[in-house]
């Protein structure tokens, strides 16, 4: 019956209950049902009204006015009116509060004020993807009472269709249906979030029914649930094209990677299709350029671009005087290590010896975000990682390529420094004209292809398993799971 809680198993526990103070996909999944944003995206990716019923920009697109849905209440009973929304957004951009997930908002939004039943957001500069920003869970509207009490970090309190019941550290997060929800009441009575870092345990949990939904399911298990297999009777595996881009940042200050030809050669030698086939069991797509396919302005992979082009790579290396090859090291976290290992083998024919430093997350941030001198000392040539910033091209470009974001200040881990690129990224972010913006973005991508400060590898689909008989589950492009619309097939 639908009284039984829906058990959802993730690969890691939530880090906090405060939506603005985190950046993790798993945490976003858990928080999603508790909170609502001004706007939201549906399963097709279309922007829909959320807590805001309508919105309207000023002519210069710097001032945005949102009309707030009337009659909505937080789980604690407080009204979610324009005042509450304003306070929630003001908190988001408050430098003193220093929320971990708020940096982009602080950069874009200058101020927020209440205007009767509406909320007015004033931008510091034009930002084409602003509406996308207010669909992200970081911008969810939180209860002023919970903020006041300082307990938001371990007690969720929003307006969402589910209300927070408990978070037993190490065990589960429990959520029940919010009876006072303004929208369509969810079909399931409760959600039980659990987690396990072991991919094979997730798979087993799906088979035993300990979990109704598991996400992410490792690609190898796709075949376990293939039609005809016995496990197919128990559960179904679904895939969602995802914006999770995996890339390799090259240290542009370290010899011989300071030569763009060398960097390009490395990129050319990579067989991206083999990566997708071998490592992802086909659940992904080769990424050949800076932007991911979910962005309308992305350059697609051209014919043959997803295969290794060793001869071209050799030629380039020769040109750069590196035909004998060289040694270089990459820092990588445990989950992404296999990618590095595959690259290691792909570059061997070039004489490039890749030494892999597999690191635990904490150590990795230390070495990946190290300043140039330190990287030179440690001879850190590359850093391998991924993230997803769906729809927002600016978030896919600015942190990675702009000079101002050079490590340790930001995620430009290879210290790429190109004034032209900086300018073009700014221009694209502020440009509200789709056509000219498209041009700029294409120019950016081809410049980046030439300079190759970063080697894009692939995007990985989100794979998740759902027990048969449960419907309404979907995954968002950024990889989080949406379970509020879930329902169980009625028992026979």
């Amino acid at each position, binding site marked *: 019956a639908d009284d039984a809680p829906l058990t959802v198993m993730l690969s890691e526990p939530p*880090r906090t209950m405060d939506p603005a103070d985190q950046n993790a996909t798993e945490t976003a999944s858990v928080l999603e049902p508790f909170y609502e944003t001004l706007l939201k995206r549906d399963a097709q990716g279309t922007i829909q009204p959320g807590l805001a019923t309508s919105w309207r920009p000023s002519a210069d697109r710097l001032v945005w006015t949102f009309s707030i849905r009337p009659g909505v209440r937080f789980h604690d009973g407080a009204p979610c009116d324009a005042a509450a929304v304003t306070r929630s957004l003001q908190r988001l951009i408050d430098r003193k509060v220093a929320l971990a997930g708020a940096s982009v908002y602080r950069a874009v939004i200058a101020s927020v004020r209440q205007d009767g039943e509406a909320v007015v957001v004033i931008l510091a500069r034009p930002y084409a993807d602003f509406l996308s920003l207010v669909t992200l869970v970081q911008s969810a509207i939180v209860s002023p009472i919970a903020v006041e009490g300082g307990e938001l970090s371990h007690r969720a309190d929003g307006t969402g269709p589910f209300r927070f019941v408990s978070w037993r*550290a190490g065990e589960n997060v429990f959520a029940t249906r919010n009876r006072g929800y303004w929208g369509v009441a969810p079909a399931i009575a409760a959600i039980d979030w659990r987690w396990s870092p072991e991919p094979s345990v997730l798979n087993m949990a799906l088979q035993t029914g300990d979990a109704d939904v598991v996400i992410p399911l490792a690609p190898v298990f796709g075949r376990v649930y293939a039609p005809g297999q016995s496990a197919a009777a128990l559960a179904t595996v679904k895939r969602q094209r995802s914006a999770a881009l995996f890339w390799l940042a090259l240290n542009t200050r370290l010899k011989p990677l300071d030569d763009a030809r060398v960097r390009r050669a490395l990129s050319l030698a990579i067989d991206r299709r083999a990566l997708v086939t071998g490592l992802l069991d086909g659940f992904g797509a080769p990424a050949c350029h800076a932007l991911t396919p979910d962005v309308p302005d992305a350059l697609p992979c051209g014919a043959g671009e997803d295969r290794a082009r060793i001869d071209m790579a050799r030629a380039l290396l020769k040109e750069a005087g590196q035909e004998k090859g060289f040694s270089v090291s990459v820092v990588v976290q445990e989950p992404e290590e296999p990618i590095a290992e595959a690259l290691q083998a792909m570059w061997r024919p070039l004489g490039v010896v890749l030494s892999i430093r597999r690191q635990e997350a*904490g150590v990795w941030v230390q070495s990946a975000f190290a300043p140039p001198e330190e990287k030179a000392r440690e001879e850190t040539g590359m850093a391998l990682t991924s993230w997803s910033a769906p729809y927002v091209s600016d978030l896919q470009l600015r942190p990675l390529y702009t000079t101002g974001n050079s490590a340790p200040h*930001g995620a430009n881990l290879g210290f790429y420094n190109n004034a032209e690129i900086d300018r073009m990224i700014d221009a694209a972010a502020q440009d509200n004209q789709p056509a000219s913006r498209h041009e700029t973005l294409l120019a950016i991508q081809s410049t980046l292809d030439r300079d190759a400060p970063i080697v894009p590898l692939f995007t990985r689909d989100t794979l998740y398993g759902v027990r048969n008989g449960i419907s309404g589950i979907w995954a968002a492009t950024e990889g989080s799971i949406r379970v509020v619309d879930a329902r169980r097939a009625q028992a026979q």
Partner: protein
Amino acid sequence: MSRLLRRAAALPLIMLGVSAAVFVAIHALPGDPARLMAGPQAPESTIMALRVRLGLDQPLGAQYLHFLERAAHGDFGISLRDGSPVSTVIVERLPYSLALGGLAYLLALLVGVPGGAFAAAREGSWGDRLLMAATLVGASLAGFWVALLGMEVFAVRLRWLPLMGAGDWRHYVLPALVLSLLPMAMILRMTRAGAREVLRQDYIRTARAKGLSPWTTITRHALRNALAPVVTVVALNLGGLISGAVVTETVFDWPGVGRLLVDSVRYRDYPVIQGVTLLSVLGVLLANLLAEGVIARFDPKARGA
């Protein structure tokens, strides 16, 4: 006894020293909690602001003094991750770890000591050989391997036991078994080795001359003198229960301190790491003190001296 009391009295002082060492050591761990929280996209300004918020911008000495000051009032800080007090976080998990670990060690002792005694009594027999082979296998299998296999067989295939999580007694079976495997092998072998040694002593001959059964001879005469190394090793690991069952707890999704530690390390949640480490140190020190008392009971000569 008085020697032990004296050592117990020195414990607070030792813990003070240890806390300083732990403090320094933990803050020397590579990694930055602020960066980990903010995620890779975050710019430096966010990181700096977070550091200030978390109190990580102060000099280490000041942080330590602050820690001591609060610790004096029983406040061991606030988790960087979710803002709950460290003591609450640990107290929530501790019973789970103690229950699982205690059960595992109980099991290990209940099987290991009699098993070792049996093997020693029947030295060279097939029973002995079988047990010895079993211990070797037990000691050379990775915990996660056995755990995953056990889950696959008993939970997925046979459906006899729950897959994971904590709950009723059935939830304890698999994790406790897995956790007890290595100590069981260790205890069994140590007991056997010790008993074998003792069985050669003349006083065993006396015991047999009295007409005692082999079993009584072993349990009453040999074991006492053979168990000292077992007690030593068990005590050492007992303290480690608090943080030692990381793999088992992770695989079985057991809400114990071991996983808390792993998670805290992953996010560089310094106050929690610190709390767990101090607790673990205290546990080991206490367990060893206890063990020394027990060994002294076994060895009257060492006591009299």
